[in-house]
């Protein structure tokens, strides 16, 4: 029994995988974050009166100060440069470590002023997973530099090092949805679905109580479509509480992942909370090796873009063993 569990643990986390999925996910994830946070200014938190400060446990426990606006300006510039370096894979491990340390601080800052939002916590967990990973071994400037210095060097072989970080990110993401679903069931039971709760909620958010207003002013309309709130409630519970199924069932994975994305988009459109950056974590679900394999097959003979980026020989899509079904 214990042996079977240990084997299952090893299979799940440490089945050797190619470097493509982790490298490409790193690139896409940090590309999205670089673009998302480029116009974002964190320095304002250094100018908010201490009267409004209500530290969250992380800042309170470790006595982390809120720095001045000038200091925050410097920190955010360093962080954004590190995000870009992590994206293109330049000094990848150091860049990702800087992203994790400074990102935890910068993204955590706002939560010390009245309300803990939930759209960036998962990003911090992903930062730390990647910071100790070898996500720069492919699809990176570092890989290109290595190949240039060592012509004829073998490509990174499939390794557990390329499996566990992707699985770690997906497990963390699954916990987010699972927690949200079970919190609803524990707090309210089936009343969360069967009552008028969601209809009331769709009306409440029209009063400007979310961090941003809904993208479309149709919440009150949707709330009055017969049974629509209840159907949305069922969908919410099914996709949230059932999300971890996506980790284990290849067949159900697309439905659960798309359902999760649909929930986030629906919340933004109908209710307001700004989860756009949260969506970026979904790039870790994409089987990039199959995507690049398909592209290579589609455009074969035109250019070896994949080989250039990877600085590795072609990897067959059947090599991918990263997600047990």
């Amino acid at each position, binding site marked *: 029994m214990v042996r079977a569990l240990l084997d299952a643990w090893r299979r799940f986390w440490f089945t050797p995988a190619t470097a493509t999925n982790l490298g490409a996910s790193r690139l896409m994830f940090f590309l999205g974050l670089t673009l998302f946070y480029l116009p974002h200014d964190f320095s304002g938190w250094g100018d908010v009166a201490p009267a409004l400060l209500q530290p969250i446990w992380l800042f309170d426990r470790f006595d982390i100060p809120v720095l001045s606006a000038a200091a925050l300006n410097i920190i955010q510039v360093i962080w954004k440069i590190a995000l870009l370096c992590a994206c293109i894979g330049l000094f990848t491990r150091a860049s990702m470590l800087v992203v994790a340390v400074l990102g935890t601080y910068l993204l955590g800052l706002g939560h010390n002023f009245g309300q803990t939002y939930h759209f960036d916590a998962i990003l911090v967990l992903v930062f730390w997973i990647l910071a100790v990973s070898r996500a720069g071994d492919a699809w990176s400037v570092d890989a290109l530099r290595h190949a240039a210095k060592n012509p004829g060097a073998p490509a990174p072989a499939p390794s557990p090092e390329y499996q566990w970080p992707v699985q770690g990110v997906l497990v963390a993401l699954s916990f987010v949805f699972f927690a949200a679903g079970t919190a609803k069931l524990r707090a309210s039971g089936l009343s969360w679905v069967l009552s008028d709760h969601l209809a*009331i909620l769709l009306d409440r958010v029209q009063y400007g109580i979310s961090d941003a207003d809904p993208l479309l002013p149709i919440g009150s309309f949707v709330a009055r479509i017969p049974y629509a709130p209840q159907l949305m409630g069922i969908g919410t519970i099914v996709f949230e509480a059932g999300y971890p199924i996506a980790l284990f069932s290849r067949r159900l994975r697309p439905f659960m992942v798309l359902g999760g994305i649909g929930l986030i988009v629906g919340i933004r459109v109908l209710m307001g909370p700004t989860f756009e950056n949260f969506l970026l974590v979904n790039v870790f679900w994409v089987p990039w090796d199959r995507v690049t394999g398909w592209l290579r097959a589609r455009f074969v003979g035109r250019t070896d873009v994949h080989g250039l980026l990877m600085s590795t020989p072609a990897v067959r899509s059947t090599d991918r063993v990263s997600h047990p079904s």
Partner: protein
Amino acid sequence: MTFRRQVLVHLVILGIVGGSLYDIVTSQEHWPFSDYPMFASIHQKHALDNWYRVFGVTPEGREVPIRRYDELWPLDQSRLPLGIRRIAQTPGSEARVKSALEDILRRYEARRAARQHEGPEIHGIRLYSLSWDLEPYAANIDRPRARTLIAEVHQQTVAVR
């Protein structure tokens, strides 16, 4: 993987799994871990009660709601009311609430002067607790059922920082 590397990787995995499970099981929040309780408690009344909102007072004495992100930055229309309500409901916090309002007024006016928002000039800030009976599309947002003044500050009381 070397043995040390395996230990490090397992620590990361156990940290993520353990931290997440701990908060889910105990219904607590230790950011960046959380039990994600948003929207979990059901609302049974078609009402929104005791929602705090700040209003600016123009030189003519008119009250204008301050809700836009560029007017409240880096706070926002959700974080500020929830945070200041928690402070205001703490006994003996009158001075702290006024200090917070003075800060909001100072930053609003500084940003207006720098053309970072297009709100009107204001000379004071009032904090109200508002209650509404819900109407579709918040048609009555300007006509709450109840309105209680919690605190107010005026520009002459705002210290220059």
